[in-house]
């Protein structure tokens, strides 16, 4: 996988596949009786999946030694943001028709909406500072500290999902379990750093 440019293109196209298929299903009216719910659920699920993959890349690199996979972390993270944006826009547009008072009322009545929105807005600075220029401007350490927010966003997303499910909590619990595992791995490394990597605490992308 030395051919980074091609691998990135591969990832870029694969990340778009769910989006294209979803558009195709909407176009052919193959989205069931409640299209809004279908699109909302699909984009929400994709956001969580891409968030979990983003978070998983660093542990996987540390465990397997496959250093090159971290090069894809930014794109996977941006895909989480992309699907998160679609998820939010679907809600604001087709569920609330951009009606501000209705949105405000809904946030008051449905705490999971407030948590989901918070999780989304935590991803905004991460997306903005994802460029190489921004890493330089912020300085590696500050940048890395800021990007720890992704764990908070991930936790917010999982709680948001857990709160809205009526009784079958298996899927949100699975996401929660994966998240705890990933956070747990990071804490473990922090307190028991492996000797060979003791100096290298976080990875800052560079090209």
């Amino acid at each position, binding site marked *: 996988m030395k051919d980074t440019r*091609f691998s990135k*293109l*591969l990832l870029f*196209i*694969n990340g778009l*596949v*769910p989006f294209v*298929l979803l558009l195709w*299903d909407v176009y052919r009216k*193959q*989205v*069931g*009786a*409640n299209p*809004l*719910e*279908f699109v909302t659920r*699909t984009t929400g*699920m994709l956001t969580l999946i891409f968030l979990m993959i983003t978070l998983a890349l660093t542990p996987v690199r540390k465990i397997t030694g496959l250093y090159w996979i971290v090069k894809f972390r930014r794109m996977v993270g941006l895909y989480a943001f992309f699907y998160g944006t679609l998820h939010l826009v679907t809600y604001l547009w*087709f569920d609330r*028709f951009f009606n501000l008072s209705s949105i405000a*009322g*809904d946030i008051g*009545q*449905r*705490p*999971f909406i407030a948590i989901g929105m918070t999780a989304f807005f935590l991803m905004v600075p991460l997306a903005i500072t994802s460029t190489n220029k921004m890493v330089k401007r912020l300085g590696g350490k500050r940048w890395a500290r800021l990007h720890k927010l992704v764990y908070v966003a991930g936790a917010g997303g999982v709680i948001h999902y857990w*709160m*809205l499910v*009526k*009784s*079958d909590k*298996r899927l949100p619990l699975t996401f929660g379990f994966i998240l705890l595992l990933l956070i747990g791995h990071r804490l473990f490394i922090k307190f028991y750093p492996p000797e060979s990597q003791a100096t290298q605490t976080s990875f800052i992308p560079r090209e």
Partner: protein
Amino acid sequence: MLNKKPDDIRDSEITDKHLYLNRRSFMRGAALAATTVGTGLLYRRLNPPPAETPKGEKFSGFAKPTSEAGLGAGFTVNEKLTPLEDIINYNNFYEFSTDKGSVASESKGFLTKPWTVSVEGLVNKPRTFDLDELLSFPLEERVYRLRCVEGWSMVIPWIGFPLARLLEEVEPTEQARYVAFQTLYDPKRMPNQRTGVLDWPYVEGLRLDEAKHPLTILATGLYGETLPPQDGAPIRLVVPWKYGFKSIKSIVKIQLGADEPPATWNIQAPNEYGFYSNVNPNVPHPRWSQARERRIGEFRMRETLMFNGYGEQVAHLYAGMDLKRYF
């Protein structure tokens, strides 16, 4: 002699640069095609489009409500029917799946013959009805709104008969005040009962006066055909002024009693789902508003109506009751 090639590789064996690059772009194309198809298949697998379901059997004789009297009694509504395709592909029936889009495929082939409903408890003539006996009650069509507690609604042309007719046959005693209903418990036929997502079997209940109300029916069909499994085959309750989960599906037992019977969602979350669960836009669910609803097939939201629009017929049942307390 630095430029001399080793003797064991002849010129003709060295891959042409052109071919080498061709091979490389071929591999890239293959990788691109394979991963894209793989991702697409994975997505389809995790997020399947709605399934096709076989048609039920046609009912030959059933009465249709006449427009004037029917409208007044609430037996029919002047609203667009929800398409059959949506009614049979968007179901809450946790015995098969918690995913509304998967109930149709998970319940395919559900056996409803033989089927019996035993009616017991505080009645003078307890009796077990088989399906043919149930279908021999005079059937009629009722076009009802159905409002789900989740905030969506449909308009469904049911076929069935008033529950009151069945109760007449068994003669409730003086002490009887409530009616309890129970869904089939058979994890072999209802596979999701192997999970603990709800307390099985599913149970529901009504006050006797609610049960005897002319709007309360036992449905055996919809759109002129027998009920498909996902909609509660072979026989289900329909109480149009209450949230959908009160209208219990695939009933095997009806028991009359003196005390308020347990109800599954009420056990699951007593602060969210009350025993009465009348459709009420003024009493929000603790986690969401009930003021509006999405009619399946419509783009804009609708205002939710008190008692789902059946206030004229049923409000008197709750005269003097604090509906915020008895939600």
